[in-house]
């Protein structure tokens, strides 16, 4: 058993999820729902605690545990904790009908399981497994409100395209395996750096990148985002945008040796995403799609940071704090804090139809707390001080400049200047346009409002004291 101790968190979460799934059909009552909610929260907390406990003091680089499945590297653990936090936040902030509570919370927990596996994967198979657990939970969550057509449409689109991308990923893995004969990423890394890569390996990694690019929604694999984001429940959209991508980003860290050979692909991903995402969002009027496009751009910023890499950057020696991955970690936290809140807030506003900018009018008047929170989140997404997104962007671009990339930050910043436009439009509609005759329908419980307010405050607080996030990282 001791040998499998590091797998404990994953086991707790998966088994808890199954347990809740079984509890679900017991009774349709609010009490049960609340009970499940707190149970789930407890499970997430327990998982996080276990995670920290089992990894404590095992901070050697990429130690392989559980037959070389997972890594206990602090950065990855920290990522996993962050993702668990997003799950917990979603559990708190989400609205679900009483009768579906069991499925909902259990799927969220499965999602969390997939994330923490993916985030800590040290093995191609673990990457695949984590990714699929994550994806399959997401299919269900996206199509959760299956009485709505659009929900189904989004679910099937995500399912088909994700399956398509998984196919690429899987085939790429197969090719990599065929070349190197191992599934351990660390071994692959050693082998790949030792010799010149043949075309097959290159193609294999290329196909792997297709799968990664899809999950991250980097241009040109971004096409699914608007529809899927639009049709998912608000909180799920937040998770897709934040921690589902974040898990893939974390999983990609061991692959950063690819920068040697594949940097141009990542460069292109980054540049195209930053430009494309911001361009796409320019004249969109459906709010969730605006944020969907913006998330494409944000992945571009993150990839800019990734280009700086971990140890490969020229000046990294004197700048240990802002290696690319640290900046990425910061950004994932910052972005998650902002986008979760933003999508959740939009979820509360959403009526029957697609939520357009017009629907936002008057919200600032009727529900100032929610509008204020949304303002803060959008502010942060736009990368303006004092919200945390400001330093997130600064760190990423600093890392890139530090690594010798100049054009990419310039492109990114120019792109963000375009992007400012649609963020401003959201703010304009929230606060500066006269309300339509019909009242905007905002349904948020008191708990949810407090959760929102709390995250808004957190976004500002982190923006004022960005060092906190690094301190958190150092704590692992």
């Amino acid at each position: 058993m001791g040998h499998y101790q590091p797998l404990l968190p994953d086991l707790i979460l998966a088994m808890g999820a199954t347990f809740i799934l079984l509890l679900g059909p017991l009774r349709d009552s609010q009490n049960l729902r609340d009970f499940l909610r707190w149970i789930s929260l407890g499970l997430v907390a327990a998982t996080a605690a276990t995670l920290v406990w089992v990894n404590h003091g095992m901070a050697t680089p990429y130690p392989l545990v559980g037959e070389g499945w997972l890594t206990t590297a602090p950065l990855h653990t920290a990522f996993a904790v962050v993702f668990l936090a997003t799950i917990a936040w979603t559990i708190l902030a989400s609205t679900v009908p009483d009768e579906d509570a069991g499925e909902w919370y259990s799927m969220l927990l499965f999602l969390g399981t997939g994330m923490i596996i993916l985030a800590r994967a040290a093995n191609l198979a673990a990457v695949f497994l984590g990714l699929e657990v994550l994806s399959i939970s997401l299919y269900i969550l996206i199509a959760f409100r299956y009485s709505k057509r659009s929900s189904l449409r989004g679910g099937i689109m995500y399912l088909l395209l994700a399956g398509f991308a998984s196919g690429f990923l899987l085939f790429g893995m197969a090719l990599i395996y065929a070349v190197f004969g191992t599934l351990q990423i660390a071994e692959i890394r050693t082998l790949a750096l030792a010799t010149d890569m043949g075309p097959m390996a290159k193609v294999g990694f290329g196909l792997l990148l297709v799968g990664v690019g899809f999950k991250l929604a980097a241009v040109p694999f971004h096409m699914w985002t608007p529809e899927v984001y639009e049709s998912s429940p608000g909180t799920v959209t937040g998770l897709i945008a934040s921690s589902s991508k974040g898990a893939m980003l974390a999983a990609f860290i061991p692959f950063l040796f690819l920068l040697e050979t594949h940097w141009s692909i990542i460069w292109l991903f980054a540049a195209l995403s930053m430009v494309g995402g911001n361009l796409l969002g320019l004249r969109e009027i459906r709010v969730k799609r605006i944020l969907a496009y913006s998330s494409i751009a944000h992945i571009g910023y993150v990839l800019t940071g990734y280009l700086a890499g971990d140890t490969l950057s020229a000046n990294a020696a004197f700048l240990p704090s802002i290696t690319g991955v640290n900046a990425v970690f910061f950004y994932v936290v910052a972005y998650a804090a902002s986008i979760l809140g933003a999508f959740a807030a939009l979820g509360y506003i959403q009526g029957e139809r697609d939520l357009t900018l017009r629907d936002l009018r008057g919200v600032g008047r009727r529900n100032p707390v929610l509008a204020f929170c949304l303002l803060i989140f959008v502010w942060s997404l736009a990368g303006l001080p004092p919200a945390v997104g400001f330093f997130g962007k600064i760190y990423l671009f600093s890392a890139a400049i530090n690594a010798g990339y100049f054009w990419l930050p310039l492109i990114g910043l120019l792109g963000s200047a375009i992007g400012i436009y649609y963020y401003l439009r959201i703010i304009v509609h929230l606060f500066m346009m006269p309300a339509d005759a019909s009242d905007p329908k905002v349904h948020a419980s008191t708990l949810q409002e407090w959760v929102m307010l709390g995250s808004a405050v957190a976004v500002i607080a982190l923006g004022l004291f960005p060092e906190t996030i690094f301190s958190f990282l150092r704590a692992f």
Partner: protein
Amino acid sequence: MFYNNGLPALWLIPALPALGALIIFIFASRMPARAAGIIACSAISLSFLWVLNVGTTLVLGNHHHFVEHHWNWIAAGPFQGSASFYFDLVTFAFTFVVAGVGLLIHLYSYSYMKGDAGERRYFGYFNLFAAAMLVLVTAENAFFMFLGWEGVGACSFFLIGHWYQKSENTVAATKAFLVTRLGDIFLLIGLFLTATLVGVSFSQQSAWTQVATSSFIPGFGGLTGPQLILITGICFLLGAAGKSAQVPLQVWLPDAMAGPTPVSALIHAATMVTAGVYLIARFHILFALSPNLMLAVAIVGVLTAFYGATSAFVQTDIKRILAYSTISQIGYMFLGLGVGAWSLAVFHFFTHAFYKALLFMAAGTVIHSLHNEQNIYNMGGLRTKLKGTYLAFLAGAASLAGIPFITAGFYSKDAILWNTLSTKWGSPVIYGIAMLTALMTAIYSFRLIFVVFHGTPRKDIHVHLPDRLLTWPLYILAFFAIVAGFLNLPIVFGVTPIWEHSFARVFGEWQAEPLIHSHAVEWMALLGSGVLALGGAGIAWLLYSPAKAPMPEPAGDIATVENNTPAPYKAVWANFLFHGWKMDGFYNKTFVRGFRITSGVIAWIDRVFVDGIFEAIQAIVRGFHALVIFFQNGRVSRYAMVMLFGAVAIITILLIGSQR
């Protein structure tokens, strides 16, 4: 505070009227309208008393000048101008006129402006003007002088536009301000040159002599000292021309008559317009160092004198006649400056201030009595109805015409004429033109007398008699217009010219000395100009005596002729003169219209092109947006196809791309 080392403080001179203005402005809405006039008059009279105090101390103490330093006002690199005052004889002459004549006009205004809606405003600005003018003439350096220089310009603007609801007044005020400001620009350039070359303090000006001998001065692109002196002088000349309404910047003064008549008397006749004379007199060393410069000043002077006289000849508006005559008389002063007769130019300013202020105020009384009638052809026969005014006006006109031996104008003008003939900078040609102008001056002066005061009334209007405040200042000025000349009797009379003698202290060796020492020639010149003046009066009698028809014949009903009437006369030359040699129209067509068109074009460019650049960028970005959004059509297989292309592109790049 009021006395330093037993000498009277200079700062009080401008400070008193400034204080008056301040009080009036701050409490304007809370004081009765009449109180403003009382405050203003008290302030200026105190100032005048103080000028007398300082002046007598200066003269009796036989001082060259007083300097009073207060604080460093402008201090930037080579540009140093302290808030300091300077008082010498020239200052005394000017302050005496500004405060003294100013006081009389203030008193006159007290009655003249009674019941005007803007009475408080009027007196506030009037006092402010006096303060600014006193700063101008008491400043120790050119930068501080510039404070007053611009201040009087601003006040002139305010007061010309006093009746602001009439658009013409507004236009006239703007014109006056902008044209003088054009001159001021050159003045500023001159000041910068002065500041960098020798420093702006008046006591430093003798350093120009060293500039004149330098062949190389760093920082000016190889210009030599004499060239720089010429440039500086031209700049000053243009600045002076703007302020003093000299050719080619004279066009604003006739229109400036739109203001209330006391304003015309004080600002546009006696004081502000002579600031140019003061400027050049102050910088006389600079000018004297360059013969070309002197010639330029003299030519500007004589041309303007001639211009003013010819234009005054055909005007129908009493104030415009006087305005052109002012232009002409200041031309004489410039002529005096141009021939090196600095003290005589100042002397002519001195006498001119009295008789021209007198003429304006008398004209004002006439206008006032006739209910704002300004067309001389609607007057006539006022000799009996306004007897006192007539006598005063007669004294002023005689002085303006230079009626020999008894008028101040004769002595001051003749001295300039004599210097034009006799000094090293003079020339017979200029002398000839100046003499011709003197003849015309006499003609138009007496034309006024005959048309306005003699004959029978042309229009039957009720004359309401002026009160004492409107007449007594006239008598005082009339007295000075006659006797002020005795301050400088010609040397051929066998007496010492007191004025010239005293001012020699200021102008020293730079004062031009007559090269002709023959008393006979001087007597001839003296008598000649006297004869011209009397002859002019005679000609005027021939042409304009009540028995004769007005000449030249006006085109239509002369009563309707106004300033902007295109062609009141049948004769082309008369119209040409009537419109001030059509220079107004020329400037309007070129500069004013040019400015309007340019600014319109720039605003258009800004709206269309400069903004357009950014609109275009926006359009391009939107175009790209349209391009990429085109693919977002929700069709899964299309999305998959894009992904496939992406995958193919990645593999292609990897297989053929170069490594880092």
